[in-house]
């Protein structure tokens, strides 16, 4: 596991975006070799998306040969509702980049047969060759995607009833009216994310510091589903200082001492061709 600690939210977002950029550039995707990216919604990744859009606009990064799979979507919320995850992804990311629509995947929460939609979603991921890099955020209760506390850690894409805490937290997006908040969602399972080649989880803010502590300093628990990634061979937690408040000093110091290694992972693209050449040797 890597734990990358940045000063604040914007630095964490930038680091995450640069990491994604470099992973895609190093992968050199083509029409025969797509880079498959798993994507989250929510407030945490917005800064990363902004940076990725900047890279695209600067001509550094293309998404033409990138396939994306989103983590989740509400059930029964119309696609163009401002709070739908389709709307989120369109507004915050897709409309700004050169991704090809047919390479974009988000579970359809309005499908007639939701179980069938979930099965199909898993098949689509398989057909794409699995996910190369899954990016996630978490809730203060340690949920990843809509895998609420108590979710099976080997779960697959499925219909999930939202925890009451999540519904209350979401009410602010639905005129503060609990009755308007969707109560169900389609979500990839913990097992689905675990199958990705690499997982990057962004955690920022003091309100998520206890969840980060539960994620990395205690044992694997389905009550803190994000802790499952302790068992993943390639996981990166990208966090800000505030999110480390509940960690031991020893943990923070250790990972901070590794920053010079971490920062090599996000060096600017100018140096990238060199990196590639070295690899070829």
């Amino acid at each position: 596991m890597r734990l990358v600690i940045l000063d604040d939210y914007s630095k964490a977002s930038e680091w995450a975006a640069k990491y994604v950029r470099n992973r895609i550039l190093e992968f050199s995707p083509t029409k025969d070799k797509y880079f498959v990216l798993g994507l989250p919604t929510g407030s945490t990744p917005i800064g990363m998306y902004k940076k990725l859009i900047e890279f695209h606009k600067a001509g550094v990064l293309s998404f033409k040969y990138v396939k994306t799979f989103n983590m989740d979507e509400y059930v029964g919320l119309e696609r163009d509702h401002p709070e739908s995850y389709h709307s989120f992804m369109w507004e915050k990311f897709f409309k700004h980049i050169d991704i090809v629509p047919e390479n974009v995947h988000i579970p359809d929460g309005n499908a007639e047969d939701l179980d069938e939609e979930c099965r199909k979603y898993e098949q689509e991921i398989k057909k794409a060759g699995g996910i190369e890099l899954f990016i996630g955020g978490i809730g203060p209760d340690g949920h990843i995607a809509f895998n609420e506390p108590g979710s099976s850690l080997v779960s697959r894409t499925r219909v999930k009833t939202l925890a009451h805490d999540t519904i209350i937290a979401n009410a602010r997006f639905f005129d503060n009216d609990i009755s308007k908040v969707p109560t169900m969602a389609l979500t990839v399972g913990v097992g689905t994310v675990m199958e990705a080649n690499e997982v990057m989880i962004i955690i920022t803010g003091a309100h998520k510091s206890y969840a980060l502590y539960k994620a990395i300093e205690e044992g694997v628990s389905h009550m803190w589903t994000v802790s499952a990634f302790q068992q993943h061979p390639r996981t990166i937690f990208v966090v800000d200082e505030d999110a480390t408040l509940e960690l031991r000093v020893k943990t923070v110091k250790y990972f901070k001492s590794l920053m010079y290694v971490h920062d090599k992972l996000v060096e600017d693209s100018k140096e990238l061709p060199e990196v590639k050449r070295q690899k070829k040797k």
Partner: protein
Amino acid sequence: MLKMPSNGLVSHHPIIQFRNCRILHQRRIIRDDLWVRNGEILNPRKLFWEEKGYADHQIDCQNAIIVPGYIDVQINGGFGYDFSSEPELVSEGIQKVAQGILSHGVTSFCPTLITSSPDTYRKIIPQIHKTEGSNKGAGVLGLHLEGPFISVEKRGAHPQHLVHPLSGGTQDLFDVYSNLDDVAIVTLAPELINAKAAVQELVKRGITVSVGHSTANLCIAEESVNAGASFITHLFNAMLPFHHRDPGIVGLLASNAINRCVYYGVIADGIHTHPAALRIAFQTHPDGVVLVTDALSALGLPPGRHQLGTQQLDVRDNAAYVAGTNTLSGSIATMSSCVKFLQGATRCTTVEAVEAATLHPAQLLGITERKGTLDYGTDADFLFVDEDLNVKRTYIAGEMVWDSKTGFRNKSS
């Protein structure tokens, strides 16, 4: 223009994405792209999620503000042509004006005929048809017939001997105009005998009725509105002045005895309507303001003396005067200058100023399904404007038809 891979699977019509711009969408100016296909504004989400389509061309708008094309519901002529006075030159005049006003941001208009003889109407009206705009010029939304059923007393510049009393009732409409197929608006005086029946008959035929050139008191004006009239022709001009015991037609702006939103035309050239009067009207009823140019044949002509029909005119200081005098001959205001003047005079928002030339006239004519907004599915008639509302480019049906640097796209005419 950046060429992207053709997107022919989705539709054979190319998809154009206007980028790096702000657009007037849902009554706000937001930073977003504008998508166009087959002459219509396209919903990009629908394109992306359902059709899996993307842009064939991208255009960098260099941070322009994109607003709907302006609509002028009262324009008598321009560029040397007067629609009412020369039946043999009407088609030519419509073409010249339709093209010329593209440079003022006008993408559709109602050619306006002042009080004329039945014989003249019979010659002119069949020559003017509702047409779609193109690179040849702005679209014609239908005629605006201003008169002859008006008040002799408030006839303004209309020829007195041709003013008609409407004594024959609705039959007079057909006898005088002879053909109403391509008529969009009729201005009449509501105090005339049989005016109510005429209003009802015209509205039944889908024609917008405007009250004007009139001595009506408020009560009569309200009755006319409740019978179907929905517009006031050049507010304050050719009507009784506002009086606090009988506010007259002007009082419609604050009436609580009418059953619909009344729109009112204003000539915001700083000459025909005093800025203070403009402010009073706007602040009383901001949702009803419709900018009109009421422009004459001298619109678009350079400063100097011009022979127009039988009349000699001097064009100077953005106005036309009877030659050698200080007598105003009429408006030569451009629509783009009226929009700017409205904003300057009332300190309204950019959105409000633009809507006075777009949304409101479209609502007045009941054509918001196609014109007056940038809503998805409407006609892609729009303008690039700068922060000060100077028109930089004009598009009709998604095609650039005028550019402030390169001029008209259709060089042939």
